[in-house]
């Protein structure tokens, strides 16, 4: 499996401040890639740069061999923002049918993704009346509709109860097993062990990019949280 995205000296500036500093990364296909770090570390900015909605990006960045945001990627990359971007005044089914037409996805996919994220029985409920976790899953279902090669999900499990959270991770695993690449951000370090590769971010920099096992070995730590602390200290020292 090759790489799905290449960063070479990528920077993002907002006004005079650098939000992302000289990123060099390669994201491998068919994996669950965890983007971990505190809020304000630049996780969302990195994801937005990948989907081509971020202004002020410089350096070389390619996604599936194309420029981010180019029309070639519109159906190959899907993005779900942190605040579930769904239509609250429509039902689950109406949301998905609309997204289906926008993506040009086959009609049976609507029923499939509803089943995959476990929203059966809620098809005709207005999204605004659902719980936060259910709304998240509607947003996730929209991202999955077009069977994209790369799914970029910003904090998809935030605020979910542990049972639901592990269900969502099981979905990611199934997608990765089918060859799709999933980039998931989180500020919860516990989620590190569910990912194949990790990218630790702090203050707009990548402070580690490896498997959890390697990062633990390198930092002589037993938990992702401690490893992060050790790396953060190393960078600022």
């Amino acid at each position, binding site marked *: 499996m090759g790489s799905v995205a290449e960063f070479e000296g990528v920077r993002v500036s907002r006004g005079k401040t650098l939000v992302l500093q000289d990123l060099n990364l390669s994201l491998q296909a068919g994996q669950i890639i965890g983007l971990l770090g505190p809020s304000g570390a630049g996780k969302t900015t990195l994801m937005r740069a990948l989907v*081509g*909605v971020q202004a002020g990006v410089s350096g070389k960045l390619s996604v599936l061999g194309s420029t981010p945001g180019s029309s070639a990627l519109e159906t190959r990359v899907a993005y779900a923002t942190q605040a579930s971007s769904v239509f609250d005044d429509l039902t689950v089914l*109406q949301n998905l049918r609309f*997204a289906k*037409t*926008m993506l040009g996805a086959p009609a049976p996919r609507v029923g499939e993704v509803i089943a995959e994220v476990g929203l059966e029985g809620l098809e005709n409920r207005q999204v605004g009346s659902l719980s936060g976790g259910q709304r998240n899953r509607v947003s996730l279902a929209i991202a999955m509709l077009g069977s994209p090669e790369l799914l970029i999900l910003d904090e998809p499990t935030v605020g979910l109860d542990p049972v639901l959270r592990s269900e969502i991770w099981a979905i990611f695993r199934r997608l990765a097993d089918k060859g799709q690449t999933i980039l998931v951000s989180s500020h919860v370090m516990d989620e590190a062990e569910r990912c194949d590769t990790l990218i630790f971010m702090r203050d707009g920099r990548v402070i580690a990019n490896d498997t959890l096992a390697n990062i633990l070995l390198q930092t002589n730590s037993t938990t992702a949280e401690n490893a992060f602390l050790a790396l953060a200290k190393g960078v600022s020292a």
Partner: protein
Amino acid sequence: MNSFFGSLGRTIAISGRVLLQIRSDRRTVALMFLVPSLLTGLFAWMLNSKQLFDHIGPRLVGLFPFVVMFLAASITTLRERRSGTLERFLTTPMRRDEFIIGYALAFGLMAILQSAITQTFAVLVCGLKVDNIWLLLLAAWANAICGMALGLLASAFAQTEFQVIQFMPAFIFPQIILGGLFVPQSQMPDVLSSISDWLPLTHALRSITLISDGADSGTIMTEIWIVAAVCLGSLLLGAFTLRKRTE
């Protein structure tokens, strides 16, 4: 051809989606359709003069859809910008022009229903006398579309729904005041009269005044074309403000 049908399909889906969203809010639909009629009725009752109402009534039939559509379109679009749905779908094959045309079609349909209801009420209940009912309907519809187009554009300059509502007194009220509804344009001070010439609502209301005065349809159509040009201009500018890349 495939891409043309894809684009057409998406445009229609956007219209359908906007209509579903409007429909899900029953109270707004009721307010949208009934309030203009009730206000027209209130005017007829207050003026208490058939002659005066025949003069002002047609303009009200055009004014209310303009105002209501401005508000409805600006708030709906603002919501879409704020909730992230616009950004999300701009990363799919959806194009900005499909978005704008989809919105215009949906609100255009609402506008024609609203104008028809208001006009029917004005004619049947309030006894408004109009020579050319269809031309008045066309003009009222053009007014509503113009309000919608300006609303779409206005949404780009607001961060909150409060701000959008404040655009009403800031941008719409001056147009109503200078639009010739209270004082005929010919009786205004020169400066105001020239300003009035450059306001979209002036032409929107003038088209209607010409209809109720029984002017020839060529003169009326000139005003309607001006309104149409303003709509098109606002929609194009509006499309330009739908940015894919933001900070």
